[in-house]
């Protein structure tokens, strides 16, 4: 469904992503794992049209989408939830959702009801400005707003950022449900390995702008290989075991 081919991205003279390739097949939940600054966000922004890589190619449904505008890519069915959720703070919950209905693939009123049936909490806050929402509610709003565009592929940059563990579990249950019941394909960036090994089908481990490791989650459960790829060394400091499974 999505093919990122040998993409390199630089800001000014600093290269942040080097010759990176990854693929996402229809119906998969793929996770890109990496520390802050590894280049995860840049790759996602490039797919969504927010950044133009200086080398490489990006295909969606076999069609090149490199350097197309964000609104064009959104219309193809790729919805991007950037880091920090980026809800429109002064707009109400309902208005935030309606912005997602811009593309007009469905009737906005019907879509709104659909989202509210899915997230009853958002319905209660329909008329509240988005800035008044809690972090978890904002994440739900961001997901709901993305769903309003009727995507087939969702890109989510660090959905767990700044959320309480209990809320993070909720968010992942939602993502899993979207994948299993709605046939959504998902690409998720994460820093922490704690949950992702439980939910993702496949993972890529990214460090210093290139992929260190990739594979099906089941085969990587041992954790040691992940840790090595993630930190760039084997044993790791005792304080750095983000994953409870790592001995």
């Amino acid at each position, binding site marked *: 469904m999505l093919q990122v081919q040998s993409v390199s991205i630089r800001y000014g003279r600093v290269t942040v992503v080097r010759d990176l390739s990854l693929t996402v097949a229809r119906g998969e939940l793929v996770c890109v794992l990496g520390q802050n600054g590894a280049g995860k966000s840049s790759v996602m922004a490039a797919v969504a049209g927010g950044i133009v890589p200086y080398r490489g190619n990006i295909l969606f449904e076999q069609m090149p989408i490199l350097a197309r505008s964000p609104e064009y890519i959104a219309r193809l069915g790729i919805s991007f939830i950037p880091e920090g959720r980026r809800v429109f703070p002064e707009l109400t919950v309902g208005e935030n959702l309606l912005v997602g209905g*811009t593309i007009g693939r469905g009737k906005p009123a019907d879509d709104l009801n659909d989202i509210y049936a899915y997230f009853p909490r958002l319905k209660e806050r329909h008329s509240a400005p988005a800035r008044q929402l809690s972090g978890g509610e904002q994440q739900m709003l961001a997901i709901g707003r993305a769903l309003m565009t009727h995507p087939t592929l969702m890109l989510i940059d660090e959905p767990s950022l700044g959320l309480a563990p209990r809320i993070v579990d909720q968010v992942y249950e939602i993502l899993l449900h979207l994948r299993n019941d709605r046939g959504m394909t998902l690409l998720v960036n994460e820093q922490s390995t704690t949950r992702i090994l439980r939910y993702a089908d496949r993972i890529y481990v990214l460090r210093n702008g290139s992929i260190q490791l990739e594979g099906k989650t089941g085969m990587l459960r041992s954790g040691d290989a992940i840790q090595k790829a993630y930190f760039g060394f084997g044993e790791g400091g005792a304080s750095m075991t983000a994953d409870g499974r790592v001995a």
Partner: protein
Amino acid sequence: MSYFVQVAIDALSLGSLYALAALGLGLIFSILRLINFAHGDFITIGAYSLIVPSASATAAFFIGAWHWYAVVLAVCIVVAMFALLADNLVFRWVREATPTTLLTASFGVSYLIQNSVLLIYGARPKAIDLWPVLNSQLSVAGLRIPLLQIVTILTTLALVTVLTFFLKFTSAGIQMRAAASDFTMARYLGVRADRVIALAFGLSGVLAAVVSLLFATQTGSLSFNMGVPIALFAFVATVVGGLGSLEGSVLGGFSVGITMTLLQALLPISLRPFRDAFAFGLILLLLIFRPSGLVRASALVDRV
């Protein structure tokens, strides 16, 4: 008492003019972070579109001779077209540039328009008599109120109401507010950048057109830089109100207009020539205590 009412109406009508101009500036700024100094020249274009292009000293009406609603419609269309043209020929090519570059570009557009007007219409101010009936006075309970002031205030109220309704309840309006809050995020959700920007320039042009009609009727004369002082005060108004906030632009416009009129009325005669100095002194004080203006625009703080 009657003096007070008179001053109040003066203040509101001057404030209305500034509020409309500030709203035109604010619409563009909130979306593009462009302080459009050519806005004053859009106002000039609106006024000059009323007369036949010629360098002769006497002005002959062209659009100005039509029925009043045809005049309003035509001038709105002309100015909106020029605003869109300015975007297409200049601003769209510096979309990604820094605010300083954008500002400089708008100065360029401003000088281009002023010199084009000089070239086509000549340097001498031209007298026009648009809608003389509006310059008659209305006698209400011993007060003599210029009809134009009432029309100015009511027009502003109507436009602000319509614009609020548009921004709040239409899909295009909600998209504009989203774009003003976080342009890139709005685009990720499928909001078309070129459409939102065109809409902003079009609306800004319509607001400039209305200001030009009210102002030309009031002063009865045209000059190649007639819009500049209005745009300058409107810019001050957007800063006072809070850059990036449309409510702030309206509020700032009225604040500046009311302050000016009150100073004019209350200062001792010997100090009145320095009215603007007092006004800007007050504005400086306000900005020292509230650097982000009367209404703080969250978008400006959150983004960067």
